[in-house]
Each structure stands twice: as C-alpha cells, then as structure tokens.
C-alpha cells in the first residue's frame, strides 16, 4: 500500500485502490554482504540502483541483508526461492556463492558488484560482473588536488586495506605523480605509499571519530586536501576539513559528496563517482527488456561508469586552466595515452 500523505492529519485518508504494478511482473532482488545496505558504500549505492529501478520501471523488488559470511549462499537461495528474475549481489565476498547459484539456476539472471576478478568465472551466461575502474577517476582527482594544493601536501586514508579501497589511493597518487612530472613540482601524498602498497587506515569503516582523527593527523603534517576512502568513517575527514575553517578541503568518493553529505559541500572540491546505482539500474533494465548479457561491465571514464562529480561550490575556485588540463588528461586516459598501474584495477 502507498504511504498516505503525512500532514499530521488525524483524518483517515480516502480509501484508494492500491496501484497495481503495470505490465508483466518482473522481480529484481539484491543481497548485501555483511556490511549491510546502510554501509554508505557499495552496498548502499547498489541498493540505490535497485530502488531507482523499482521507481523507474515499476518492477517488484526483494532484498536481503547478510549478517555473516555464512549467510550468503542461503540468502541468494532465498531470493531464488522468492522467484526473483534477476539477483544482484554486492561485493567480492559473494563471488563463490553467486557463481554457484548462477550455475544452479540458469533461468535467473545474476549480477555481482565489485568482484574484481571476472576471469575466474568460466563461461556462465547468466552472470554479469559489474566493475569500476575508479583508478582512472582517482587519477583525475589526484591531478586536480595536486593543482589545487597550496601546501604541496595531500592526504589520503582508507577504511580497511581492500583492493576496492586501495584502487582509489593508487589512482590518486599516480595522478599526483603525473602532475609532478608535467609541472616539475613536488607535491607529496601522505597516507599512501604506492611502492609499498601500504598506508594509512582507520581499520574500520564505521569509526567516524577515528576517520576524523586520522584526517587531523594528515592535516597536522600539512595536507590541505584530504581524500578519505573509508565509507562513513570518511565523514570524519569532512568534519576535520570543515573545522579547519577553509584551510583544508576534501575530495569525496563513491557518490557526489555534495548530495550524500550535503552539509559538507563547501569543503568538497569534487567527488570520485563510482556510478554503481546506474550500472545496477541499467543491468536490471536490460534484464527486464530481455537484453541481458554476461559481458562484464567495467565502469570507466569513457562510459561514465566512474568520473569526477561536478565541482559545485568550487566551480569558481578551480582555475579554468586546470579544468581544461583535466579534460585533456581524461582524454589521454581514455585513449590509453596515460596508463595507470594498479594491481587493484579490474582486469576485464
């Protein structure tokens, strides 16, 4: 049933026939990993894709959150049992179980978000990996940040050391390196050592306060732009930037920070978009339309599966010159003139 208008009215709404879903019933479902749909990260973004698809396509949906790794197989099965036509699973942790379920249920279409190694999949025709080469967009972010910094120091940190996290940090630091090479500058990235493939982590995606302290640590070393890759814990970094009173700004990840963390918009230069919601929605749409393919989807700068979000309040502060350089760099990445090295990149 539809939720009645909330006017605080104590009068009952008029009885209305519940709207019936138009067309043939198509059901798209989703299974989270143990982060849950409120992880402010890939689970949540993918989930948004599901909700968008529901709103746009008028389809039925189902969803189940996993509590622990032992739940995955069962939860996927429960979605199969709920007669879902398409099941999206979120995260590399579900890869084995998604593959097994796809093999077992050839009539159901599957998609898996952020599973970094599609080559391990044999030819399963009903399973589509959704991947994002966020190293590309992070490269742009790094270039941008290097061009914007006054202190010649940038900071980044992650939540937990996972490839889906460090890919951002790799791209970011290579973007900075590229800038340094081009301009013969000496901008430093604190918090990520690309050679050692190790850096700064809060150890936890939930620890907002920890994210704040970590960012403050980077700031104390002189970083004037921070790049948190830590889900909710990254919010702490936004707070640290805000508290600096304009001296420090941030670049957000996954979603457009000016939308998802509106209050901090004045400190967010831009965001590295990882457009999972669109990818999920499009995949569901394709499945509904009968044009599903198991071809891996890789979000890139080229197909706008990842990229920089608008500058919003920084639009006027980013020099036009830098903007045009960014466009050029973007074109170079797309044309593979610039290659980005990150072992965390999707290899599809």
């Amino acid at each position, binding site marked *: 049933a539809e939720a009645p208008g909330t006017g605080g009215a104590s009068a009952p709404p008029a009885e209305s026939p519940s709207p019936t879903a138009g067309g043939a019933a198509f059901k798209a479902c989703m299974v989270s990993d143990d982060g849950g749909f409120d992880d402010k990260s890939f689970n949540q973004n993918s989930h948004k894709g599901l909700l968008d698809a529901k709103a746009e396509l008028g389809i039925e949906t189902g969803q189940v*959150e996993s509590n622990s790794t032992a739940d995955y197989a069962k939860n996927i099965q429960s979605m199969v049992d709920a007669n879902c036509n398409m099941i999206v699973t979120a995260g590399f*942790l579900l890869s084995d179980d998604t593959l*097994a379920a796809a093999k077992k249920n050839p009539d159901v279409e599957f998609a898996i978000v952020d599973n970094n190694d599609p080559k391990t999949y044999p030819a399963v025709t009903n399973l589509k990996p959704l991947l994002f080469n966020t190293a590309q967009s992070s490269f742009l972010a790094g270039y941008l940040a290097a061009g914007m910094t006054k202190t010649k120091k940038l900071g980044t940190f992650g939540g937990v050391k996972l490839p889906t996290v460090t890919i951002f940090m790799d791209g970011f630091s290579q973007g900075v390196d590229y800038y340094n090479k081009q301009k013969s500058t000496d901008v430093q990235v604190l918090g990520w050592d690309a050679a050692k493939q190790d850096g700064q982590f809060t150890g936890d995606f939930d620890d907002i306060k920890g994210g704040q302290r970590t960012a403050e640590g980077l700031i104390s070393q002189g970083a004037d732009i921070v790049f948190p890759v830590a889900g909710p814990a990254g919010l702490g970094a936004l707070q640290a930037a805000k508290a600096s009173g304009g001296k420090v700004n941030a670049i957000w990840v996954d979603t457009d920070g000016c939308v998802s963390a509106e209050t901090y918009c004045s400190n967010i230069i831009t965001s590295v978009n990882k457009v999972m919601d669109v990818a999920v929605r499009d995949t569901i749409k394709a499945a509904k339309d009968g044009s599903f393919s198991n071809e891996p989807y890789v979000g890139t700068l080229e197909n706008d599966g990842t990229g920089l979000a608008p500058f919003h309040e920084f639009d006027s502060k980013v020099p036009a010159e830098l903007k045009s350089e960014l466009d050029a760099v973007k074109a170079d990445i797309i044309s593979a003139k610039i290659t980005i090295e990150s072992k965390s990149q999707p290899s599809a």
Partner: protein
Amino acid sequence: MSPEPRKRRLVIPWSDVLITIASIVLAFIVGALLMIFSDTEVRSKFAYFFARPSDALIASWEKISGAYAALIKGAIGGYGPITETTAQAAPLICAGLGVGLAFRAGLFNIGAQGQAVLGAIVAAYIGFTWHLPPGIHLLLAILGGLLGGAFWGGIVGWLKAKTGAHEVIVTIMMNYIALGLLAYLLTTPAFQRPGRTDPISPIVDWNATMPRLEGGQLHLGFLLALLAAVAVWWLLDRSTIGFAIRAVGANPHAAATAGMSVARTTIITMFLAGALAGLAGVQAALGPSASGLPVPLSLGIVGSIGFDAITVALLGQSKPLGTVLAGLLFGALHAGGLAMQSVAQTPLTLTTVLQALIVLFVAAPALVTKIVPFLKPRKTRAFGPVPEGGLA
C-alpha cells in the same frame, strides 16, 4: 538421620520451562511494539487511530504477524528450515560451551570471538593448503582449528595464572588482535586466492569440508557440537579435571587449601574453552554453506558468533544441556531472522533485540512472574553457575 545415596533422576524443572516460554513470549511482544513504533506507515495510521482504529490495528497486525510468521517458518517450518537452524546453532553451541566452561571456573571469557577467529584461520589454512585423503584431511583441519583456539585461550589463561592479568581485559584485547591478525594474513600470498588481490582465501578442499545430509543443512558440525556438549558434560560432572574446575570456580581458596593448583586449573580451563570456541571457528571455516562448499576465509568469517556465545552460555546457565537448548533457540532466531528479512522485509536487527530481551527476562524470573502472575516463582535464582562477584 542416615542419608541414603539419593538416586539421580532427571527432574524436569517445569517452572523454569514455563518461565523461559513466558520470557520468549514477552520478548516477542516487546519486539512487536518496537516494530509498530518504528514503522512509519503503521505509525501514520495510528495518527488517526480514534477516527478509524481498524486501519491502525489491521496494519499493525499485518506487520507483526507477517514478520513473526516468516520468522517462525524460517526457523522450524520444515526440514530445510530446521536443518538451517541446526547449522546456525552448531557454532553457537560450541562457542557457548567455551564461554560456559570458563564461567564454571570463575573466568569471564569474553574472548570466544578471537578464539573462534583463530580456529577458523588454522582450520581454513589446513583446509585449502594441504591436500590430503578424505577423512584425514577433515580430521586434521578440525584438530588444527581446535588447537588454534586453544592456543589463543591458553595465552589468556597463562597470563592470568602467571601475572594476574585480568582475563576480561586480556580477552577483549585478544579479540582485536585476532581480527588484526586475520586482516594481515589475508593480505599475504599464503592466504590469498591466487590471482586475486581481494582479502579472500582459496576455497577449502572438498576433503576438508564437513559432510552434510543431502536436502538440507544438517552437517557434521551439528553432530560435533552435540558431541562437544556431551564431552563438556562428562568433563565437568564425571572427571577429576572438571571437579577441579568447578571447585576453583566456586571457591578458589578452598580449592587451593585442598591442594588444587588454581593457576594450573585456570590455564587448563582457558585452553579448553579456547578449543571449544575454536571449534566454532572450525564450523565457520569448514561447514558447508547452502551451496555445499564452505565459505572462504575472509574478515567476517565468524560473524558475531563469539559475542552471541556469551548470551548462549548465560541463557544455558553454563550447563551443557542448557547451552545446547539456548544455542538451538538462538540458531532458530538467526535462521528465522534471515527469512523474516527476505520475506517480510523486517530488519535483521530485530532478532538482536529479541535475543537480548529473552535473556533479560529469563535472567529476572521475578520480573516475569510479576508480569505473568499465574506462574509460580521459582526458588533458585537464575544463572547459578555464573560466577558471582563479577570482575574479581
């Protein structure tokens, strides 16, 4: 008065049973209220409750009955769900036995989580690295996991015995350390799946996977959990080690005066408790998931088994039979919770609330008998074997 050696026979403590049932019912009622209160849609109908109460009542009823029906169906509605319950219960029982055994020796083992993580690490490592014949491989993997957990628990016992370090502090810290260790190992080549950069291990060999009965989730793990319960019962009630454990737990001064070594008993107890919690980790690492294969080692491998185990041990009054029953109850709640979530779209966190409320009510029988007056108050206080005196 010449006392006859009284024949032992199993007396069913009916008032305990009734109070437990009443507690479960009360917990579900509170859970229902929470559901109604937090559901925007249902609440909006209460806004015009006096104009048309039927709307609000029907919506509430639908919400509650939908959720609980799904919960119950998912827990015990058929062979599939029931075996799912046993699969969920098995690690809870094992870890609960570990916590309970320590309780009996007067030790608060908050560290079942870390011990289970260690158990899972070792079991999975043996499971995917070694390639041995059927039977032997599984046996070695299980033993390895037991030893891993025992080692982690044993450290706590040893520190407590040798330096007096408080086991509550040490177990809490050891949980974090175990998790950090797992996080580190999963970035090393020895543990990573070849060709992958994700912190995920290779799949455990088929030979090291616990066999299961076709058609459901009933697997060797549940049998192991029951065996562990019997073993713990025998150990506590029928062996000299258990005698010493109970004596040290009940009165360490008297135990020491009678020649028992409190230090040694502490170490042995924590070692055994760690092994039991390690067995829970083994279940997580080697137990088949719904797809038949164990889940690969990853950061969340043991979920929150070690923490849930504390409530299991408490509800089971640190006794083996009680622990099995409590483990089954919470296993059913977990299994049903997942179904409730997928069928009735009610958040999984509700089962956490229910779990807490059930233990809370069972722990305070006086409150339950006050709310449900026709129940006879039981004589003994709840949780007899839990060490009194807290953090002494």
